[in-house]
C-alpha cells in the first residue's frame, strides 16, 4: 500500500536547512515545531578530508503506524496511498501519538495546542505538486520517490 518516500541524495545535500524552513513556512508553523530535520555527523577524516554524513529525517509514514490506533479521537489517519496525517479538527493535543511513535515524530504546535507532523504536503500532492521540502530543495538533493510493487 505504501506509495511515497522522500529520498535524500546526500552527495548533493549541503545541509543548508532549507527544507526545514520550506516546510515550516508552508505549514505556517510558529517557533518550536519542526516537521523535518537535516543533521550532520561530526566531521571525520575520510581519505584525508574532514567529511560529514548528512541525514534527512521526517515521518516515515509506516505501513502499520503505531500512532494511528492509539489516537483516542481517531484524528490520526492513514490514507490509501500510505500517507499518515492528522485531522486537525479532531485532534485534542493529548500527544499519545508521540508516545506511541518509536521516533517521537508528532510534535505539538504551541499556537493551536494540537499535534502536527509531516503529511508529505498531501494537499500539494493532490494538486499535482511536490512536497515543499522537495519542491524547493536548494540543490535538488531531495526527491519524492513513488514506490512500485514488483
Amino acid at each position: 500500500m505504501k506509495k511515497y518516500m522522500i529520498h535524500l541524495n546526500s552527495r548533493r545535500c549541503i545541509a543548508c536547512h532549507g527544507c526545514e524552513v520550506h516546510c515550516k513556512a508552508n505549514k505556517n508553523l510558529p517557533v518550536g515545531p519542526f516537521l523535518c530535520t537535516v543533521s550532520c555527523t561530526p566531521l571525520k577524516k575520510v581519505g584525508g578530508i574532514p567529511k560529514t554524513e548528512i541525514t534527512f529525517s521526517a515521518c516515515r509514514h509506516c505501513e502499520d503506524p503505531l500512532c494511528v490506533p492509539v489516537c483516542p479521537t481517531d484524528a490520526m489517519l492513514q490514507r490509501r496511498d500510505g500517507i499518515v496525517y492528522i485531522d486537525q479538527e479532531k485532534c485534542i493535543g493529548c500527544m499519545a501519538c508521540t508516545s506511541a511513535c518509536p521516533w517521537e515524530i508528532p510534535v505539538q504546535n504551541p499556537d493551536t495546542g494540537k499535534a502536527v507532523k509531516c503529511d508529505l504536503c498531501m494537499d500539494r500532492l493532490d494538486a499535482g505538486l511536490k512536497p515543499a521540502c522537495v519542491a524547493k530543495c536548494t540543490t535538488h538533493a531531495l526527491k519524492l520517490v513513488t514506490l512500485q510493487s514488483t
Partner: protein
Amino acid sequence: MKQSVYSMCGMCTVRCPIRVESEDNQVTWIEGNPHLLGGALCAKGTAGVALVNDSQRPQSPLIRVGARGAGRWREAGWDEALDYIAAKLKTIKQTHGPESVVLSSRGGPWQGMYKAFIHAFGSPNYTNHDCTCGRNTHHASLSINGVGRKGFGYDIRNARHLVLFGRDMFSALRIAENHQTLDMLDKGGRLTYVDVRQTMTGAKASRFFQIRPGTDYALALGLIHEVIKRGYYDQDFLDRYVSGFDELCSFIEAYTPAWAAKECNIREKELLAFVDEIGEDRPGVIFHPGWNLARYRDSFYASRAMHILNVLMGNIELKGGLFIPKGAADCGLPGIRSIDCAKPDIKRGDGVGWQYTHFDKGPGLAHLFFNNMLKEDPYPIKAWIAMRHDPFSGMPDPQQQKLAFDKCELLVSIDTNYSEYGWYSDVILPESTYLERDTPIVQQKGLKPRLAVRRKAVEPRYDTRASWEIFTGLAHRLGLEATFPFTTIEELWAWQLEPTGHTMADFEEKGFVELIDQPLWHDRDQLDSTFKTPSGRIELVSEKLTKAGLPSLKPFEKPEAAEKGMFRLIYGKVAVHTQGHTTNNPMLSELMPTNTAWINTKQAKKLGIQTGDQVELSSADHSYNATVAAQVTDHVHPEAVFTVHGFGKEIPRQRRSFLAGVSDQKLMVGALDDWDQAGGGISLCEVFVHVKKSIRNTTRRAEL
C-alpha cells in the same frame, strides 16, 4: 485573491530569481524561479515571509529625540522626515558645499540610482561596502586583466576542476552557481578547497588543504612555481595575449612547493599530487580569484596569483573555464536606460583618484573617509546617508567610526531593518521589504544575458517605501527633478525599456527577458580588445602598479604569529544567515540564534575548554568582549579562532538578536587603518584576540 508574480529575492545580495504567490495581501509561497532554478530556494529565501511579518523592524520614518545611539525615537510621517532631511542637506550644502555629504550603499545592481542622487546633489562622494568585500579581488583583476571582478564569469558546470581559496560557496549560496558545482561533481569533476577551517564546501571537496592563516598567497606561489616547472601552461595563449611571463618565471624560482608546504603547514606530497591533477585537468581548471578577500595584508597579491594561475591555464573564454559576461551590445541589441548623473569634478573625500591613483574611482573606499573626516581634510564631511549599508556591522571598530561620524550634523539610515549604524543615526527611513517593493529593471550579464526586475508581491505592511520612491521624494525636495523626473515606477520602467522595444508584458511569462537563445562565446582568437590594460595585453607585471610604486610580483611575507594566549580572529558565513541583516529574522534566528567560537582541540585542551563551555573573546585592548559557547574541533587551524559574522548586535528593538553572540568587527579594535595598500580592502583577518574560559561556567549556586 490569489496572485503569482516573478521577482527577485532580496534576503541576500545574490538576488536569486523567485516566484511569489500571495492571497489577500499575504505571501503564501516563495520558490526559486522554475525556469532558472527549478524551484530551488534556500532557507533565507523562504524566510522572506517572516521578514515581511516581522514587527521588530522600523514601521515608519523615525527621528531621533535622545542622544545618538540612546534609542529614543519619535515616529514621523514621510513628508515630515523627508522635509527634515532635505532642509538639513540644504543648510549643509550652503555652509560647507555639496561635497560634504557622503552616500554609502551596500552596492548591487541599483547602486547607479543612489550614485546619481548624490552626484546630482553635487557631491562626488558615493561609496559602498566593497572595501570589506571584493575590492582586493576587483583591483587584482583590473591590474592583470584590465577588467574588474565582474569582468569574468565561471563556467563551473563544464569545468574539470574547481579550486577555491576560502570561498565557502555552500554557505554563500549562490544557488545557480551551487547547482553548477554539484553538477560538475556529479560528472566526475574535482573540487579543491583551501581554508583555515573545514566548511560544507570543503566537506564536498576531493582535496582539502587546511592552511596556516594568511598563507593563501604562499600556496598559490608554490603552485605557480610547479605549474611553470612542469610546463603545465598554454604557451600559445601566453604568446598571443600575455606580457610579463619571463619576469614571473624569474620571480617564482625561489617559491618551491617544499617552501610553500612549510609556510602553509601542509604536506609537500599533497601539493605535488594536486599539481598532478592540474596537469590532467587543464585547461578546464578554474582558480576562483576570490569573493570577499578583504582578509589579509597580501590578499590583493593572493588574488593576483589566482588570476595568474588562470592565465597559465589559458582558460579564458573557454568552455569549462572563465568567460566574459555578455550584455545587450554583444547581442547586437540596444540596452536599457538607467538613471544616471555625471560625477561632479571635485576631489573625493576619501582620497581615491588623487591621493590614491591606482584605485577604481567608482565607489572609492569607504574606510578612507574616516581619518579625513577627523582631520577635515580635504574638506569637512557633515552628512552621511547610508543606503542599506551598515558601516558598524561591516567595517571594523565601530567606536572609532563613531568619532568620525560625530563630526556629522546629519546621519541618515535607509534600510528595511534596524542596523547598528541606523540605531546611532538621526533619521531612519524604512525601506519596504523586497517582497513589498518594485525596483528599476536591470541587465544581468552572462553567457545568456537577460533583463530582470523585482516586482512587489504584496503591498507594504507598514508605512515603508521603495528606495526609488525615497530617492525621488528627496530629489524633488532638493530641486533634482531633472535626474529623477519619474513619479511612478511604470513611467520609469517604460523609459528604461523604450530603446529595447520590450514592454513590461514581456516579463510576464518567465519573469525575465532573455536577450539571446544560445550561450554567446567570443572567438578565442579575437580577444585583443578584451583586456583593458594600458598595453591591451594581460599584464603579469602591471604598468599601473609600477607607476604607483607598488610591486606586481610581491615577495611573500610571513604572517605575524599570535602572542601567547591570543588567537587570530577569522570570520565566515553560514548558510542560514546573511551577514548581519538576518540574525533577527523570526525563522532564521530559530535555526541559529547565536554564534560560537571554533577552537582547535589542542589549544582548547591547554585552556581547559570543552565544546559547549562558555568562552570569553576579548579585543586586544579589552575594550570589547563577549561570551559565547566553544566549538572544539581539529578542523580549525591552531592559530585561529573562528566565528560567524553578523552577531553581537546591540539593538534592543531586535529582541531576538540583542546581545546574542560575539561581534567580530567590534573585536577588531584599531583595525580600521589596517588595509591592503595595493588592493584597497580592509585586512579583516589581521586581528588577534584574547580567548579564555569564561567564569560564567557556573558550577555552584549561591542564590536560593
